[in-house]
Structures are given as C-alpha cells and as structure tokens.
C-alpha cells in the first residue's frame, strides 16, 4: 500500500477544500464530547464531596485521593479490580492458546474434513453467545463452575471464532520451508510449534490478546449473568452497582469509573492502530 496519494489534483477546487476544512472542524468539535466526558470523570474522582457538589463540571480545587481510598479499600473495589484482572488474564490466555493451536492445525495440515472444520470454527461468528446462556448455565452447574471466574473465562475462550479467523489469516502466509528445516533437524510437530512458530507469531498473538483483553475487561452481560456472588464481581458490575444508586454514591462513582477507565485509555493511547487493524483484518475478507 502506498503511503501517500497525490490528492491535490487539478479537479480539487477551492470549494471542495473549504468543505473538507469544515468537516474537519466539525469533527474536531465533536471529539471534545469524549475528551470532556472522560476528562471530567477522572478529574471528579479527585474532588472532595463538597467540592464535587459545588463544582461538578470544573477543575478540582485540590487533588485528594480520599475517594480512591474509600472505593478501593472500604467498598471492596480492590476485590473487583483483582477479579477483572484474573478474569482477563485467564480468559485471554486460554483463548490465545486454544485458538492459535486450532488455527495452526487447520492451516498447516491437509486432512479429510478440514474444510468442514474450518467452517465449523467460524460459524460462531453468526451465533451470539447470549442465545445459549441458559444451557451454558446448566453446563457450568454440572461442572461446578457457576459463580466462578474460571468458568466464565472458559466461555470467553470458547468464543474463539473471530480469533481463529485472525490466526488463520496469519498462518496462510507462513513460510513452510522453515518447518521443513526444523523437521530435518529432528524436531517433532509440537516442538517446532513451541520453539519455532510461537516466537514468529508474537505480533499476531499480541493483537488477538489485546482485542480480547479489551472485550473481556469491558464485558457487562456475561459477568452480570454468571457472577452473582458479590465476592466475584468485576469492575463493570461494581460501576453498575454505583450508578444504579448514583445519588448516594456520587463521590465514589467517579473514582470507580477512573479505576476501570484509566488502563483502557492508556492501552488505547499506545495501541489504537493495532486495535483497529486487528479488528478489521478479522472482518474484511482479503
């Protein structure tokens, strides 16, 4: 793909340039909504309660950490934060492990039923997991995994169709000669996967992990349904509990939001291009 195209052609009249300028300005103004909502929430987390009531939409009089202490220590948000981290780590690790090996097996070997299996693994793109919630509940009950972070992580890992597509696309361009060389050196298939393939696929693993990290960290519905015990609640559920009764939690809710939002904003700041390309390579047929 060429980086820059010559867009300044003779056909680009003055009025078109003006129109484009206006669009830019409008969209830049529109972007202030996001900046304001995010910035204001984070700033409000540092205000004392009286400051917050008198001055909800402005700059804090002084930066105090009291709200964070109340929320994290007294209200148990630390528990929610740890739960979210555990869930994200387990879910992402399981998902990457299962989906990368499945894609590798499907892409690098020829065998009967390969086409059928490829379709089988992508059909999950069409079936939203929400529609299987009740049977999932029963299956988890049989396995004694209701109200367990690990049980929920397994569900995220099973939702692997998108990741299988992304990994398969990566393996399609994989150099088979490398594997031949490894085999001549005496490595079996699993050894070459671990010592040869895994180091090469680090970038795509990172992309898949990033996308699923964000998805699991932010998910609301599955934790709402499967984590009913307050000791297992994730951050999104903690925030929901505050907002459901926000007037009595007015000073705390901002600190809770700041805790959940800050890591995502930092990740997005550094990896926004990666996130976008990851999402679109899994979606557009190339």
């Amino acid at each position, binding site marked *: 793909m060429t980086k820059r*195209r010559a867009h300044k052609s003779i056909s680009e009249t003055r009025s078109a340039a003006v129109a484009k300028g206006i669009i830019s300005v409008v969209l830049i103004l529109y972007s202030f909504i996001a900046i304001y909502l995010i910035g204001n929430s984070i700033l409000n987390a540092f205000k004392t309660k009286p400051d917050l009531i008198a001055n909800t939409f402005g700059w804090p009089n002084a930066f105090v950490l009291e709200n964070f202490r109340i929320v994290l220590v007294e209200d148990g948000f630390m528990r929610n934060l740890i739960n979210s981290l555990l869930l994200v780590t387990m879910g992402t690790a399981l998902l990457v492990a299962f989906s990368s*090996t499945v894609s590798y097996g*499907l892409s690098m070997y020829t065998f009967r039923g390969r086409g059928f299996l490829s379709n089988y693994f992508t059909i999950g793109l069409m079936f939203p997991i929400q529609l299987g919630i009740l049977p999932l509940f029963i299956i988890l009950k049989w396995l004694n995994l209701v109200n367990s972070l690990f049980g929920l992580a397994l569900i995220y890992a099973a939702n692997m169709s998108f990741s299988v597509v992304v990994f398969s696309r990566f393996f399609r361009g994989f150099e088979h000669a490398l594997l031949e060389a490894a085999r001549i050196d005496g490595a079996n298939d699993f050894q070459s996967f671990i010592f040869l393939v895994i180091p090469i696929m680090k970038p795509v693993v990172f992309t898949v992990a990033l996308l699923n990290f964000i998805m699991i960290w932010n998910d609301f519905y599955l934790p709402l349904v499967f984590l009913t015990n307050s000791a297992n609640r994730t951050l999104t559920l903690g925030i929901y509990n505050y907002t459901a009764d926000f007037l009595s939690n007015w000073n705390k809710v901002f600190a809770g939001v700041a805790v959940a939002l800050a890591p995502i904003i930092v990740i997005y700041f550094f990896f926004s291009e990666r996130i976008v390309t990851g999402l679109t390579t899994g979606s557009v047929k190339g």
Partner: protein
Amino acid sequence: MKRSRAYIGFIVPGFLIYTVFMIVPIVFAVYMSFFNWSGVGPMVPVGLANYRKLLFSSRESRIFFNALTNNFKYVGVVFLIITPLQIVFAYVLYIRIKAHKYIQFMLFLPYVISTSIIGFFATMVFDPNIGMLNNLLAAVGLPHLRGAWMGDPNMSFKIFVAIVIWAFIGNGMMIFNANMKEVSHDILEAARIDGAGELAMFFRVVLPQLGSSLNTVSTLSIIYALTMFDLPFLLGGVQGGVNNTLDFVQMVFYRRAFGGTYFGETSLGYGSAISVTVLVIIMACFLLLRALIYALERRQAGSI
C-alpha cells in the same frame, strides 16, 4: 502442507472447548424450548406450548412484540442512519481530511470503553436534576428547553440512538475504511484523470466497491441489534425504560430467565423459546441480507 496426524493434537483441545461452551448450548437451547423445566427436577415435554405462550398469549405476546418492535426500530435506524454515517466517516478519513489521524483516534475511542461506563456518561449528561445538559441549558439562558430526557417517552429512544452512534460507530466505520483502502489504485487514478472530484469519486468509484464490508458490517449490526441488552438495561433499567420504550427482546429474556420471584416464574424452557425465536429471526435477516446484496451486485454487474 504436511501430512501427519499431529493436527489432531492441535485441534482437539480447542474443538472440545468450542463445542461444549459454544455449539452445544445453542443446540441445547432448541431442545430445551420444547420442555417445561425450572432447572431442577424432571423436564416435562410441552411441545410448542412455550412458543404459543410467547407469540399468542395476550399478556406475554404484547410484551414480546413491543420489545421486538423496538429491536426492528433499531435495525431501521442502523440501515437508515448509522451505516450511512459510518460510510461517510470512513470516506472522510480515507481522503485524509485535515487532522484525520486525530479524528480517527477520537471517533474510534468510545469503542474501547465499557458499556457500563457509557451508561454512566449518559447519566452525567442526561440526568434531569444533576445532568450537564439541563445545567448547560439553564446556564445559557434556555431553561425552557430543559427536559426529562430519558424519562420522556418521546425522547428516550432518540437519545438511546444518539448514544449508540457516539459509542459504537467506530468498528463499522473502520471496517468500511479498511475496505476503501483496498480499492484498486488504477481505478482511482483513471477516475481522477477523468476529472472526478471527491464526491463523484465517492459515488462512482468507492461506494460500488463496498460490497464485502457492507456484508460484514450489516451482519455484525443485525446480531448487535437483535441481541441488544447492555445499553438499554443500563439506561432504562431492567423493565426497559419509561413506558417500555427501551425494552428489547433480550431484556424480556433476562426478566423471564433470571428474574425469579420479581417477574413471575423461572422457566428455562420458556426462556429458551425466546432465545430460539431470536435465533430464527437473526437467520431470516441474514438470508434477506444475502439476497439483497446479491441483487445489488447483480444490478451493478448489469450496469457496467
């Protein structure tokens, strides 16, 4: 390509997890929908009774069809407003308007924010008492424009759509954008040499090439539309907002499946019947979508 049995070792673990936690639940939901079962005790086969109750009993069907109408109202909004907007935004980014990098960064940003936080932002803006919007209107001398917003049955759905646009436009927009970047440069150059401006380029060259991304985005949007839950739940509560204007099928399902004593019985069979009905509707929408896109492509091929 290698001929070895090792592929079995690579595929089996993922196959088991995917089958047990993804495919079996969907199939089992179909099975369960023909039974009356509370989760413990025997499963009582009831034939189509759960579907009859959902679709024809006066009380339940009214709730269900009110919710389903909202789902389809939203599908309408997707195709009339959201998708065109995504294509337009994708195009202005594609032609690299000034500050396009910053604009892309900011337009996509809400996509990585949790819906529970989006719901909180909505409270911050639209709450009638402490929300920014009413405070702002009062401050700029327009207090008569203050409203109940989410509490106003004529406004709640519109505000809901506005929030969806703000929060979730990014993914589809970038899929269209990626598709535009794949349009052949020869075609673009040829059109430019013919003196086509940005607008003409958009309609004559870029838009006709968006078939595959239109297919993808529409598929994602249909799934999202018919399983809509998080945002209306957070904005309007479990009962679906004022006068049920924000009630969606998935919320009816939630009340029936997990409501327990608050909303009457807990029937896994009835809940599954709701899920299966949604599944059938989604499949029907996919078929319709395929037929539409096929017809469009045929017409295009014919016109060249």
